[in-house]
């Protein structure tokens, strides 16, 4: 879906941030991006819908090479929605209603079409009761929810989220992740940057590990987090569940994705053990 090929980028009067980055986000998958702060994640995102233009290297969207002409950009930006870290820096309209309409209006949509999409978003995100509220009366969690809604109303094909769960409590995170899963099920590819590895392990189909401006590793979370030594090299560590499993079964190279799966596996192991011990006896 989104493909980057040997992308280099240096900020004007700044440091070189992307150093030959290659990335392929496959369509319809849940993707996660992990890496230290300052490794270039945000810069990468800004390349994902043409906000920055690489110094060298190409970016392909749906197999098409992006040429940064005005029309291409407009279409591209419609199809890639980005939710940034801080909602205060993304919401521009003082009213919830206007915030939702803002993006749609700038896509050059007709009024009737706009209304239809708005209605859909209102139902999906349960925003109807907020509609006449000003944005500054919302709490942080609600603001994050609204940023997501304001992006999703444009119906993007790829949704990019930068640390959506920071500062949220468990309940809010649950709701947020559920909504993202809904969005994914409806056919949108999702790419999340996060520091919460346990979430990555459970949620993602593919993990990209970023280090110093490059994608240094990728694969399913089980594969990636199993390579503990390599991750250590980039000082990244592993999810808690992975280290628990490692403790229990030092020779098992697999990692359960969540506590449920661990439970099942444990049962299987027990059964085998029983059978073994029966044999021994």
């Amino acid at each position: 879906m989104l493909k980057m090929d040997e992308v280099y980028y240096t900020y004007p009067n700044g440091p070189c941030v992307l150093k030959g980055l290659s990335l392929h986000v496959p369509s319809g998958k849940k993707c996660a991006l992990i890496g230290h702060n300052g490794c270039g994640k945000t810069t990468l995102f800004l390349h994902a819908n043409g906000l920055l233009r690489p110094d060298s290297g190409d970016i392909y969207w749906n197999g098409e090479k992006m040429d940064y002409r005005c029309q291409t950009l407009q279409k591209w930006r419609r199809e890639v929605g980005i939710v940034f870290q801080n909602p205060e820096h993304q919401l521009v309209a003082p009213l919830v209603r206007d915030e939702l309409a803002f993006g749609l209006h700038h896509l050059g949509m007709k009024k009737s079409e706009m209304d239809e999409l708005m209605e859909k978003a209102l139902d999906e995100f349960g925003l109807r009761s907020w509609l006449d509220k000003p944005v500054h009366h919302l709490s942080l969690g609600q603001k994050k929810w609204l940023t997501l809604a304001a992006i999703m109303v444009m119906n993007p094909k790829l949704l990019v989220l930068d640390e959506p769960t920071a500062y949220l409590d468990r309940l809010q995170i649950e709701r947020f992740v559920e909504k993202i899963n809904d969005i994914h099920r409806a056919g949108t590819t999702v790419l999340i940057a996060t520091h919460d590895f346990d979430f990555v392990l459970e949620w993602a189909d593919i993990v990209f590990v970023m280090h110093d401006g490059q994608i240094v590793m990728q694969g399913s979370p089980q594969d990636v987090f199993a390579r503990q030594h390599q991750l250590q090299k980039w000082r990244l560590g592993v999810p808690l569940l992975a280290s628990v499993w490692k403790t229990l079964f030092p020779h098992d190279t697999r990692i359960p994705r969540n506590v449920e799966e661990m439970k099942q596996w444990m049962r299987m192991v027990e059964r085998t053990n029983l059978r073994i011990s029966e044999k021994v006896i």
Partner: protein
Amino acid sequence: MIRQFDTIAYDNRLRTIRPEQKVIFALLLLMMAITGNWKMQVMMTIWLAIWIIGYARVSWKVYAKALGVVALFLMMSFPALLVSIDKSFHVSIDRSQIFIAMSLLSRSVAAWSCLFFLLVTTPFPEILYVLKRMKVPSIIIELLFFMYRFVFVFEKAAEELYVAMKARNGGNHWRHGGMLVFQLFQKIWHSYEVLRLALWARGVSDEMTYVHVETYNEKNKRYLWEAAIGICLLLRLG
């Protein structure tokens, strides 16, 4: 401080009335207040107090406090109005000045009541919507809309910065004021950079326009009748 009246404006009882009606009502009364006589002004003040406290259910404490501040300011400007000093430094109080001061008092309080009524019953975006219908240039409306959003972002930043200063026993020196202003200024540049990117990301390329999705509130006949009858009665006083 900025939030106080704004919050009231969003959850008062007259919120659901169409903003045009409230704006026209307030402006009409305002015009009558600055042109009319004192009887009219006093009646108007009382009538508006009923609207504000009775119908809109604004806490009387808030109203009294705001009114108190206005009255205090007026009182303090009276000495300057009443006392006159001539060239030989004779201090005197002129009888005609007393009359002027009294008429000033009634006019100011009545006019202020109109403004305050508008302020606590109509949220700012709805006033802007009326301005838009009054064909105020769209650039002004857009600026006002965006400003209204950012006012609260910066107010929050300023408040948190001030609390952080106070937590370290600061915040009582003008140099700290300078620091605060500077930090806020930094926030402007930062927000500008980041917001621009966020807007581009949503496909806002060259022209950024503000769209206000209009809502249609109810027309309330009961209040409409009271307003009309009240204004007629006031005009008979004048």
